[in-house]
């Protein structure tokens, strides 16, 4: 083993020789910034303990942990350059991974988790003012997994599922998972949380498990074990027509013969059917299956769009190319397939019209009424969803998320700015100042929220 030691040492030395770091000075600056944060909390704690006001203590401590910096718009702000109405630092994950969600809009709140941070927190802010409503500490990681029915479900990468009261942040329940069992995103439907879990860690061979939990108590209603050698896709389960749809993909190359779309009975968890996705390779993506008109449309890792009967899983048609489905309207499935926005006959898959879209990056199509908007790597376009004619096109930097139509406006977050466009004409109504936006926008009532690369949330007036 001396030989092994020597070879390890040689490799480690070579890696050390190529190491590049920001240096001690930068590290100390970062540490000072973190210390100020901690120190602020401690000062507050001491003062409040002296006062002995229990209720007030917890309330004010929460405020002290993350003092939102509310920025009022200048009275003479021009409509072309909008300032954020409020700014909250260190509230969102940094950096954000492709499968990690941004801030979630829930009623008049914005819920954000700090992701892979220490200590990690989930916080709820008033969407209009940015005021901190509550904070929940989770440990070294924090992710929001589902929101709905007055509940926020949070989990660390390998932690239990924790149900929080949306209004207060109080822990309602906790659902333990096995070692190495990781929660994916969940869907709250009525009084039930449907959530999948995988065992993505190295060496783990256990199959994914889907749970149905009571929203009020966290009690397990059922669990359904899927196929060995697979992990669940990133999308949350789709609940429709009394069944729960979840897609899987291979854990690694060769771990399973193919991947499937599973339809589970929402009441019992029993498998109703499962459809072969004809994908013998691994591929993760975040697009959920879309159900409409008795069919379910699902993307596969083998770069296909499949149309399946929602009652049986029988394949009706398939189309080539990786699709991002915007929606279904008037018998047309509208999707970006590779570098085309296309409308396919919902029953047969035949293309009715198509419009080229900018290639070379991600596409974010959204169907709203009779218009489909597509944000791409260089522009955003509005297309008549029936005729396939382009209504307007606006050049812009690559988008970081789907555009959000609301109140006659279209909000688009690019890597450098948030823009508000007139939805009917594409005319620019306002833009934010330059910043490194990574997630958004989310648009609760009266506010448009984006997250930047350093974890800051920015809230804008619509």
């Amino acid at each position, binding site marked *: 083993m001396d030989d092994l030691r020597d*070879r390890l040492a040689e490799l480690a030395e070579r890696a050390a020789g190529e190491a590049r*770091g920001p240096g001690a000075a930068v590290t100390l600056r970062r540490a000072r910034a*973190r210390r100020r944060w901690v120190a602020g909390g401690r000062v507050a704690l001491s003062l409040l303990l002296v006062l002995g006001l229990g209720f007030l203590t917890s309330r004010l401590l929460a405020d002290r942990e993350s003092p939102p910096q509310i920025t009022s718009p200048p009275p003479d702000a021009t409509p072309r350059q909008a300032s954020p109405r409020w700014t909250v630092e260190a509230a969102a994950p940094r950096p954000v991974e492709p499968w990690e969600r941004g801030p979630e809009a829930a009623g008049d709140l914005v819920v954000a988790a700090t992701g892979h941070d220490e200590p990690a927190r989930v916080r709820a802010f008033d969407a209009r003012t940015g005021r901190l409503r509550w904070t929940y500490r989770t440990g070294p990681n924090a992710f929001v997994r589902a929101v709905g029915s007055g509940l926020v479900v949070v989990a660390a990468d390998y932690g239990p599922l924790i149900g929080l009261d949306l209004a207060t942040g109080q822990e309602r329940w906790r659902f333990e998972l096995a070692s190495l069992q990781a929660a994916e995103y969940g869907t709250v439907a009525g009084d039930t949380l449907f959530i999948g879990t995988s065992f993505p860690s190295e060496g783990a061979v256990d199959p994914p498990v889907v749970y149905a939990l009571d929203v009020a108590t966290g009690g397990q209603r059922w669990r359904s074990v899927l196929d060995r050698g697979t992990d669940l896709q990133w999308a949350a389960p789709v609940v429709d027509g009394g069944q729960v749809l979840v897609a899987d993909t291979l854990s690694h190359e060769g771990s399973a013969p193919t991947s499937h779309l599973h339809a589970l009975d929402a009441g019992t968890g029993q498998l109703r059917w499962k459809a072969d996705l004809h994908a013998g390779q691994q591929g993760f993506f975040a697009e959920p299956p879309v159900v409409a008109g008795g069919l379910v449309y699902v*993307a596969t890792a083998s770069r296909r769009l499949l149309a399946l009967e929602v009652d049986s899983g029988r394949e009706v048609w398939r189309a080539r190319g990786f699709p991002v489905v915007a929606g279904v309207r008037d018998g047309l499935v509208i999707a970006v397939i590779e570098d085309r926005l296309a409308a396919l006959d919902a029953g047969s898959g035949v293309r009715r019209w198509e419009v080229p879209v900018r290639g070379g990056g991600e596409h974010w199509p959204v169907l709203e009424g009779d218009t489909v908007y597509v944000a791409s790597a260089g522009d955003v376009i509005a297309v008549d969803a029936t005729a396939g004619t382009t209504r307007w096109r606006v050049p812009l930097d690559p988008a970081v998320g789907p555009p959000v139509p609301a109140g006659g406006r279209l909000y688009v977050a690019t890597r450098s700015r948030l823009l508000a466009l007139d939805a009917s004409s594409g005319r620019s109504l306002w833009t934010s100042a330059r910043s490194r936006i990574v997630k958004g926008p989310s648009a609760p009532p009266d506010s448009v929220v984006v997250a930047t690369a350093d974890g800051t949330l920015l809230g804008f007036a619509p």
Partner: protein
Amino acid sequence: MRDEREFEDFYAAVFDRLVGQLYLVTGNLQDAEDVVQEALTRAAVRWSRLRRYRVPEAWVRRVAMNLASDRFRRVRRRLAVTVRLRVELESRQLVPAEVPGLTEALCALPMAQRKAVVLHHLLDLPVDQVAVELGVPVGTVKSRLARARGALATLLATEAEAGRLSDQGGGGNHG
């Protein structure tokens, strides 16, 4: 200020070395730099306390190794064929010529085994100390080391065999 100067000296003394060690665990130079940097930032926050430790470097290494595990899920998924995103990711590797096959052989081991190998075979920590560092029983460490040694021997022998064949012109499927 004295604390800060002391931390600067500590940083300069350990950064490269720790990146070298963590490279053996992560198999990627960028990841090794990232976790060491984050661990050192956390050390800087607690430096007034850590500086009194007998070996502050051990604390930083433990944090960095935990961070490496924590990132594993993300890295694994990043390396997956991300159909939708078509992500192309930087993977800074060393030029393999000088240490043939070792990086690949290490990467073929589960991370838990890689950690045990680095602590025991590179840093010469006794098995019971490795158990403390990793927070697992001594028997688990012995088992991980035995499995790792067996796997490395097989993998490196295969590499060497392949190299010999290649030197003899046995790889001839080129045109």
